[in-house]
């Protein structure tokens, strides 16, 4: 017998010791199929860095800006208004910065004599940017929930449509069969007892 032709491909072979566990016989016997490992719960090692696991008690999706950074926007209810206010605040602060820089760079600030006016203004602008990004991030969980809702709706519609179509097909099939049986009954001559 000729030896089976050697398949050559551009890619390296998959790990054979793993693949052999999933042979057709094994699957048909349901013989100790490897399940994927469950997601890790505690802290784990990521590229040499220790990463803390997800803490389910805190609302981790939106860490508070008040941890280390001052919160500038006043009301978290009116997202659009606050975002616009922050945007215009950035522009006005930038104009102030330009004025400071064009006049004199080294004047110490009035609030704290350690840093210059320019640095203080830079810090304020940085704070505004961080706040605007944080506000945008706070909208992310809502976006995730809406996406989930849309996906569920689509799935439901698709399943409904499929079952409707299938049901109508089945009805037609039954009708065709019934009519065939009746016409057959007409053809068969009645046997006299």
């Amino acid at each position, binding site marked *: 017998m000729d030896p089976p032709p050697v398949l050559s491909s551009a890619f390296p072979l998959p790990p054979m010791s793993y693949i052999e566990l999933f042979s057709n016989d094994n699957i048909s016997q349901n013989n100790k199929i490897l399940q994927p490992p469950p997601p890790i719960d505690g802290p784990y090692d990521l590229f040499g860095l220790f990463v803390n696991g997800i803490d389910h008690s805190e609302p981790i999706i939106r860490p508070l800006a008040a941890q280390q950074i001052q919160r500038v926007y006043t009301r978290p*209810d009116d997202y659009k208004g606050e975002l616009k206010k922050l945007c215009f605040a950035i522009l006005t602060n930038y104009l102030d910065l330009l004025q400071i820089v064009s006049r004199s760079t080294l004047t110490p600030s009035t609030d704290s004599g350690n840093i210059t006016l320019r640095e203080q203004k830079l810090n304020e602008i940085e704070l505004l940017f961080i706040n605007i990004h944080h506000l945008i991030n706070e909208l992310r969980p809502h976006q995730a929930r809406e996406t989930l809702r849309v996906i*569920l709706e689509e799935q439901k519609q698709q399943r409904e449509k*499929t*079952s409707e179509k299938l049901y109508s097909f089945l009805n037609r099939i039954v009708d065709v*069969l019934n009519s065939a049986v009746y016409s057959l009954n007409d053809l068969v001559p009645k046997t006299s007892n």
Partner: protein
Amino acid sequence: MSDRLTQLQDVVNLLADHLCNATGVLQETARPSRFGDFEQNSTTTTNSNVDNNGDDYSRLFASLITRTTSELVALIDSLPAIPSTEDDLLEQHAQLELLEQENIETTSRLEQTTELAEYLLEQVQTCLQSLSQALLDERKKFPQGQ
């Protein structure tokens, strides 16, 4: 085409880039300022801020920054209504749970219909089999084709 929040974040970063670039370029290309009463050699220099090449960087950057800001404001306005109160959140939650329930129901209905279809298929197949068997038997009884 990324989603709206990512676009928003990108435009904010773009605005920051414009601001930084504006200060840097204007500082580099600015004409040296005059001292107060001090007489200078080059008193014939023009008063405008235009660069040697005729590029007016300040006007360019001003238009860039204002355009980016108006983009940002337009994007913010285009955001849909966002639930911020507790009631809205609860309503959203309830909607999600309802949808999940309905999904489970439709799945079970689909499964039932599939089972029915499979049963019907089996029946039709047995019928076909018995019919073909009967035909073969008949042909065997009358091999002359009567």
